[in-house]
């Protein structure tokens, strides 16, 4: 069975460490916040200028002056700090954020990522994604392994305009955990009940398959 959105988030959450400052993108990455292991402290960075993002407010706490990068109303937590957009991206560009998790349309064997623009469709913009992928050393991409039509999203070369070049080395899909190195994908784990053959069939870029591919456990 391919992973659910929640299981994808749970798998990514295993990469968290106590004391990490983490930026989570919109969509599945946001769910990672729900699976921070007990006893571990992580602080969420929101690129509009908030470090230490709390949960959504109660109706009584709603404050138009306190939102996250998805423009949702949020709260602060004890230990939060608030700052300008330039300060926020200094953190990101300066490599101070420990982990960035974001979605993508495509990744390729060179670590390129395409995530913001589909030619012919309306272009809304890259927001902070280009800064995040260029600035972080530790990035995890979460996405489905293939499109609804069965087209692989793990490619020899991205076909869509890039968000960043040569900056991705970890991908968690609904079928597998894959690393990128030396111009290849390296299969590290598979989703429970998903066969290696199925993953190979849906991976268009060169995939190195070890003799034993452990199953993820949930």
């Amino acid at each position, binding site marked *: 069975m391919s992973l659910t959105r929640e299981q994808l988030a749970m798998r990514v959450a295993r990469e968290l460490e106590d004391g990490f400052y983490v930026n989570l993108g919109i969509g599945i990455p946001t769910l990672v916040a729900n699976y921070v292991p007990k006893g571990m402290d992580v602080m969420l960075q929101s690129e509009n200028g908030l470090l230490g993002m709390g949960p959504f407010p109660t109706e*009584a706490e709603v404050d138009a002056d306190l939102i996250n990068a998805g423009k949702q109303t949020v709260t602060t937590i004890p230990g939060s700090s608030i700052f300008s*957009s330039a300060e926020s991206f200094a953190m990101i560009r300066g490599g101070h954020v420990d982990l960035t998790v974001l979605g993508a349309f495509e990744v390729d064997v060179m670590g390129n990522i395409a995530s913001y623009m589909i030619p012919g469709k309306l272009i809304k913009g890259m*927001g902070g994604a280009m800064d995040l992928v260029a600035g972080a050393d530790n990035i995890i991409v979460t996405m489905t392994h293939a499109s609804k039509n069965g087209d692989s999203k793990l490619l020899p070369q991205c076909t869509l*305009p890039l968000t960043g070049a040569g900056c991705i080395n970890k991908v968690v899909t609904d079928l597998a955990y894959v690393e990128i190195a030396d111009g290849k994908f390296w299969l590290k784990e598979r989703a429970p009940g998903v066969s290696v053959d199925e993953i190979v069939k849906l991976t268009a870029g060169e995939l190195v398959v070890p003799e034993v591919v452990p199953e993820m456990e949930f």
Partner: protein
Amino acid sequence: MSGFDKVVSSYEEAMEGLQDDMTIIAGGFGLCGIPENLINEIKRRGVHGLTIVSNNCGVDGFGLGVLLEDKQVKKMISSYVGENKLFEQQLLAGELEVELTPQGTLAEKMRAGGAGIPAFYTATGYGTLVGEGKEVKEFNGRNYILEEAVTGDFAIVKAWKADRYGNLVYRHTAQNFNPMAATAGKITVVEVEEIVEPGELDPTQIHTPGIYVDRLIKGTFEKRIEQRTVREA
């Protein structure tokens, strides 16, 4: 009155001198911390051919979105413009130009513009459409592109509190692009919720020093919320 007193008495006076084809730098992220009344004054003045540097372009009927209604905007320099149907129509009709700019690069362009730095190198956008046609330079084995600073004929800013000298304090994440915008205007106009006397704000808590501010006005704000997300009490 002191020569440092920046307070003006009307929105008309606040935007005095605004002309067609000018560049305006605007603070705000989404609808949070936007100078909503200054934007309405720009609409009232009916100037056209504007270039606006702002992370977003408001929504239909609110924020910078209102300037699209009479086609006052020639060009937007933004990182994300997806919340606005009128924007989409004018873009597709070729009536509006957009220069998509990564959010951190946009913030840094304003910061650099205000700090007298004409350009800077960044890894953001290297190898992408954003980097096309821009100078590339290698530092320590990594490639960077040269991005130019921006300045505006006007900067429009929303802060929480100010003293009469234009020292500013922002509230929560309504800070966002406002401090950089404040530095990057030839004429920087700020609207706030409260104006106090010099000495009433703690000097150690000032976000934007008054030296950057030319005109200051007290307004009332709708503060519309774009995504109202709540949890059970």
